[in-house]
């Protein structure tokens, strides 16, 4: 390494560069007529290239841009999860009315832009890069939520997300200011040193800063009581975007949550651990209880996401390597579990007049077994039943929690899981245990949550390979890693060992 001139590590920056180039190319492709329809294909290419470059950098931690970014295995694993979620979203967006209305090029460019933000956020190791990345991630999502322009609810969801998201960002920034004031450093590694040097460990103002940052991140990860936007936005946004947000945003936000709290604030762990534990417990209870009466599948998954965020936060509460491993494992599992469900919802939205109402999946077991099985597996996995990745994920989290002396939170996870069965199994029951036939076109139109008049019905959507394949793939992953979890455990352990 040369010490004379600023060295740019192009190899380690290559994933970010690839995504940036991809965003530009996809956006420009919409301008040229011959390649106008190529946006999904180009997006795939970009995501594939970025994923390949990330894997190339595996197991070779590097500080970039004078330590503002750090490409280690935690960043790579989380980025890969986000990229996989984006790839699923691209597949699910094929023939999606929202993508056609907004313009395929813009839609996909925004999606890639959000992925770029996530990849940066997972690497962020400086308050400035942290904030820039989180905005890069969020702003395209505000727009994407509102791309289904004919539907009022989509616009409402975009606006709501914008307002609440801005509030979250403002809180985050305010907290950062306190921490900068206390430590005189924006660097994650400099913050603990600065606070220690100034003798401000445990100072009320520093604690206020930590609290505000935690609240800002809680907005992004939809942790109760900062979750109110989640069900509304999930329900209103185009479903492929919802699926992307549910998995990728959560993963990226948790990556920086981990890095900030387990690196920059590890010295204050005694102060923030109990507070985060209470947030996690509240999330588990509020999310699970909120999901109970939901008829809209997207709202149901929104609340379920709140509860799952509570489980995942448990891994952070213990501030240990095992905790980080458990989080990364759970997020990877969450990718499979959630995307299987969303793929089926997308297919049924286009196929039935019920939108994402639970009636859309009635009798699915006999009507469309290839969709019913993925949704069933997804629900059982989210509920944490054995032989699915959800069970191993919960096992991992509980192991980390008990090891970190937070057994009471582990009991909360157990109790929350029990409540969650009531709504997950309700979906399963609707598929297998009620007679079908109500889904025939011309039956009563749906009420809340769907506006069938806007989206034309495609009676064959349930057979389209670009919808069935992701559903099958994701559910197969959920079962496979439930039976052979070791590869995913190794993957997660790499992430954890890069911090501790």
């Amino acid at each position, binding site marked *: 390494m040369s010490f004379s001139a600023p060295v740019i590590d192009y190899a380690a920056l290559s994933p970010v560069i690839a995504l940036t180039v991809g965003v530009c190319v996809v956006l420009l492709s919409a301008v040229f007529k011959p390649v106008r329809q190529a946006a999904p294909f180009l997006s795939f290419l970009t995501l594939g290239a970025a994923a390949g470059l990330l894997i190339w950098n595996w197991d070779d931690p590097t500080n970039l841009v004078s330590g503002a970014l750090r490409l280690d295995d935690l960043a790579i694993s989380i980025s890969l999860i986000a990229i996989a979620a984006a790839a699923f979203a691209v597949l699910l967006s094929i023939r999606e009315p929202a993508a056609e209305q907004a313009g395929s090029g813009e839609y996909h460019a925004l999606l890639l832009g959000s992925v770029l933000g996530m990849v940066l956020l997972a690497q962020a190791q400086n308050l400035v890069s942290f904030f820039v990345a989180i905005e890069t991630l969020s702003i395209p999502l505000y727009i994407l939520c509102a791309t289904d322009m004919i539907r009022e609810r989509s616009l409402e969801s975009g606006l709501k997300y914008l307002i609440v998201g801005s509030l979250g960002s403002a809180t985050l920034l305010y907290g950062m200011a306190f921490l900068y004031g206390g430590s005189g450093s924006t660097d994650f590694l400099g913050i603990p040193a600065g606070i220690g040097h100034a003798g401000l460990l445990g100072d009320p103002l520093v604690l206020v800063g930590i609290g505000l940052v935690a609240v800002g991140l809680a907005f992004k990860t939809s942790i109760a009581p900062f979750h109110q936007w989640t069900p509304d936005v999930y329900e209103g946004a185009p479903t492929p975007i919802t699926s992307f947000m549910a998995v990728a945003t959560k993963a990226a936000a948790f990556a920086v949550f981990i890095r900030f709290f387990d690196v920059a604030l590890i010295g204050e762990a005694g102060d923030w651990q109990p507070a985060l534990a209470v947030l996690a417990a509240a999330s588990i209870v509020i999310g699970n209880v909120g999901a109970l009466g939901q008829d809209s599948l997207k709202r149901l998954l929104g609340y379920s996401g709140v509860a799952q965020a509570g489980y995942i936060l448990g891994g952070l509460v213990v501030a240990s390597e095992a905790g980080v491993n458990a989080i990364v494992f759970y997020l990877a599992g969450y990718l499979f579990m959630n995307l299987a469900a969303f793929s089926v919802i997308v297919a049924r939205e286009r196929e039935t007049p019920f939108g994402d109402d639970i009636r859309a999946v009635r009798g699915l077991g006999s009507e469309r077994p290839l969709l019913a099985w993925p949704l069933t597996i997804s629900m059982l996995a989210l509920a944490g039943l054995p*032989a699915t990745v959800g069970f191993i994920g919960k096992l991992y989290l509980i192991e980390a929690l008990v090891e970190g002396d937070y057994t009471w939170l*582990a009991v909360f996870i157990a109790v929350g*899981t*029990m409540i969650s*069965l009531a709504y997950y199994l309700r979906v399963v029951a609707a598929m297998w245990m009620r007679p079908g036939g109500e889904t025939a076109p011309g039956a009563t139109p749906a009420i809340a949550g769907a506006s069938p008049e806007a989206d034309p019905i495609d009676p064959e959507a349930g057979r389209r390979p670009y919808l069935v394949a992701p559903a099958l793939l994701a559910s197969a992953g959920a079962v496979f890693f439930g039976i052979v*979890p*070791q590869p995913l455990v190794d993957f997660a352990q790499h992430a954890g060992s890069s911090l501790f």
Partner: protein
Amino acid sequence: MINSLLWTPLAFGLIGLFLPKRLTGWWAVLGTAATLGIAIALLAGFDSGAAGLQDTVDVNWIPGLGVDYSLGIDGLNVFLVLLTAVVWLGGTAFAAFREQERPHLFFLMMLLGETATLGAFVAQDLLLFVLFFDLMLVPFYFLFGAWGTDREGGPTASAATLKMIVYTLIGSLLMLVGAIATAIIAADGGQITFSIAELAKHPIGDGSQQWIFWFFAAAFLVKMPAFLLHGWMPDAYRAAPLPVLAVFSGVLAKVGAYGFLRVVLPLFPAATVQFQTVVLLIALASILYGSVMAFTQTNVRLIGGYSSVAQLGFITAGIFALRADGADGAVLQMVNHGLVVAPLFIIVAILAERSGSEDLREMGGMAMRAPVLAALFLIVTLATLAMPGSANFIGEFYILNGLLQAKIVFAFVAISGVAMSAYYALRLYQRTMHNRKAEGIESREIGLRDGLVLAPLVLCILGLALYPQLILKRTDRSVSETVAAVRGPSAEIPKSHGREIVAASLDCTDRVPCRVTWGSQPKSHPSRLVARQ
């Protein structure tokens, strides 16, 4: 061997998905029959003299989390495995003789249920045990919910099933936390292992044992179900399809009792001794409550259900007597009860087909033209009420014997349960088979097919009645070791009086595995001898 035992049912179930509809049932029967064959081969190769586990499989499954895929057979589970295979064959065959809706899914779930149950019985890793224990719920959720009957004025099948699942999972999720806590506390910062045998070598501290004990006990007591935790039972039993209920009630309830023997006693000895009285009280309450409820129910399923509550109370009492006799009896009684209750529910199904109702008040006179059915039913009934001469009698005798040594007052209360069982069993038999023939009832002999299902099960009951030592001599060693571990190596297990009597007639002593000498006592029946004393 043990691997093929475990996965044969599931493999058959998955292949069955690709067969034509009318063949799936027969294919599933073939699968359960093959499993039974493997189970019998395992029993034949079982060495009752050897200590510890046999036929073990031990593979690092998730090294990162310390979870092993470890299976094994010993005296505690060898007959429960056999029971599972027998009852499943019966239940599946009975279902295959009847038209099922969506047969592919039905038989896949049936066979998945068998794999999960066998897994719970043979797992030797604590976490693997929890995994299979929870996995059992999935197939039964589908079987109860999708093929069950919605009750008029009551909950739908899926609502009743949901209630069952939520109840059962309260316990088993807490058990998951408890299992992980046990391993982590035992590891004390070192390498985590979930191996039951390893964990049993150095039990964790008394304080931790106390709360973890209840996490496990909750799971097992709900599964049985025990008194106060049985809320899911009436609705679920009324909703369940009967062939499924036969295997459910016959086998799954035993997993709870088995869990006490396999996990709780060895891992939490101090807590077991400490809470012995509490669990015995719950067991006695189950006996009394179950019996009294079985007196008054008019739904034939619920008579079976509440009688199971009482019987499982007996089994729990036997285990928590913490005497070798009591636990021996409990293992024997688990098998007995499974063999009795499964044909009982199949008979209930046959009766319901003939009377169009499951209400005792609308039945009667069924024996008139169905002597074979009546005879088979009578044998089942007499075994249920533990008639001297039946293996159930030996089982209850051992249990009461153990209880008498441990807590004499409890034994006296438990004895009343034996008397009460006579009442509800005979009431069920008389009201259905005897009395005046009610309107709309068809007294018809069972067909050859149903006979083929029932007769072998009843033959098993008869076989065990003649030769209960088949089980006792193979289980005794493991059971004694388990119980001795709880009471500490120093605690001498007093030789029991009753045990000597039985032993004398069978030429075996307390510690030495029994050798039955039919030569010296050719005409005497063990139970009869006991009765005479």
